[in-house]
């Protein structure tokens, strides 16, 4: 098994996911299977294959530098739990 329980906990924390203690070994097992598959794929010789950043073999389309969006603040803020003076309010975060 390539992942142990403490690594699963750390990944869950990085992703801000709450997981049950009792499920950790199952996650560790399943995620390890995926990693093992990747490991297996690594054994395929790819020395003369250029790395691919995207499955689509095409290039990024560029847009002109033009302002096309209008102010829709009121519309967007309808879904926000709390706003004030045009600001979104969130739980206090100070480092």
């Amino acid at each position, binding site marked *: 098994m390539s992942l142990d329980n403490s690594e699963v906990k750390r990944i869950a924390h990085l992703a801000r996911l709450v997981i049950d203690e009792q499920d950790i070994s199952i996650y560790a097992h399943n995620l390890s299977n995926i990693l093992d598959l990747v490991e297996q794929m690594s054994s395929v010789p790819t020395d003369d294959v250029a790395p691919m950043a995207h499955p689509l073999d095409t290039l990024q389309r560029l847009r002109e530098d033009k302002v096309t969006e209008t102010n829709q603040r009121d519309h967007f803020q309808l879904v926000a739990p709390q706003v004030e*003076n045009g600001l979104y309010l*969130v739980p206090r975060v100070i480092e």
Partner: protein
Amino acid sequence: MQWETVIGLEIHTQLATRSKIFSGAATAYGAEPNTQACAVDLGLPGVLPVLNREVVTMAARLGLAIGAKIAPISIFARKNYFYPDLPKGYQISQLDLPIVGKGELEIELEDGTTKIIGVTRAHLEEDAGKSLHEDFHGLTGIDLNRAGTPLLEIVSEPDMRSAKEAVAYMRKMHSLVRYIEISDGNMQEGSFRCDANVSVRPMGQKELGTRTELKNINSFRFVERAINFEVGRQIDVLESGGRITQETRLYDADKDETRPMRSKEEAMDYRYFPDPDLLPVEVSESLLNEVRASLPELPDARRNRFIEQYSLSREDASLLTSSREMADYFESVTQVSGDAKLVTNWVMGSLSGALNREGKEISASPVSADMLGGMLKRISDNTISGKIAKEVFEAMWQGEGDADAIIDKKGLKQITDTGAIEAVLDEIIANNPKQVEDLKGGKDKLMGFFVGQVMKQTGGKANPGQVNQLLKKKLGL
């Protein structure tokens, strides 16, 4: 023990586009909160980023200006972390295959020598929003207008050996991004800010010491002070037998100290991976040629040309080419008046003085290049003396018209009529018999006294050289 300081800088420069890097929302500074944050900037589900052509061009401009290779294909990646001013939960940035590769920048040191500072890379990324920690009933306010603003992060090699070198590099880069018109470089508005990686090592040691990162410094003065404080702190720790912790520190300008910023119990793990929403970006040879052709003459090349073409000292030429506006101004004045040395003295003297006094940029000078050139022409053709010119300059600055009009209106024309000067001189000679005797007796210093008297009586309008000659003739010296 002798310690050596090692510094590398990461400069974030905001690109001067109209719209954001991945959306069509405006980037104008100072708008009402969240009025320039569209669905893409808010990270709403189902949106797709589309890259702004202009940011690619601007990155290429910088790359060419520092002699770097521009990647024919570059890739965007997601840098994952959670913070409320980053609504998507990741920042789109570049990790592998950044758009600009290795380049270099030459800086000038205080002793007049130069040094090459390596640039490791420069990559494109989006800025985050702003958190406002004022009191919103114990909550934090979020303004996402800045989210998605294009940034070019320019990463240097750890090539700097003192805070002064770091400042020189930062200033040079600041002048360059403005020169090539990719950023307004406004530091108060955060358009140009830097993180400094600082470490020390015993002199002569090859491996680098453990470094700390000083975050978000937005002035030249603070970068110097922050680094100097941090170097002193690290040496103190090491000399008292301690070890440096690799960490991010924040510079507090009020207390003039740095202190740890993030608790590092959980090391940051950004889990970079290629952004599946964005395809590889191509910079074609034809686009590069276009960019190359549109670049202005660069500061170093212009400085060298100024030394050559106008016979200026390196120091003068460096100062005059430190901003494009200043260099353009200088060349316009010189075209009108001809005498480059005289132009240099006036641009760096009276003009710069007046601009500093009123906190004005040269582009907002009330005395245009044409006006200054017109006045200097009147010094060269002996219509006015250098002293009177100061008065004319002040009047032009106050908006009283161009030099010729002011000279005319105020009657400042130099007296070239020998008879008129002789009359004044005769009177002074008659009134100062003692000085006349002493001068004749060999006290040459008294020449100055007589010339001064004539200048005083003519309100500075006599030509000192001419007065000298006439005086000598009269007294038979």
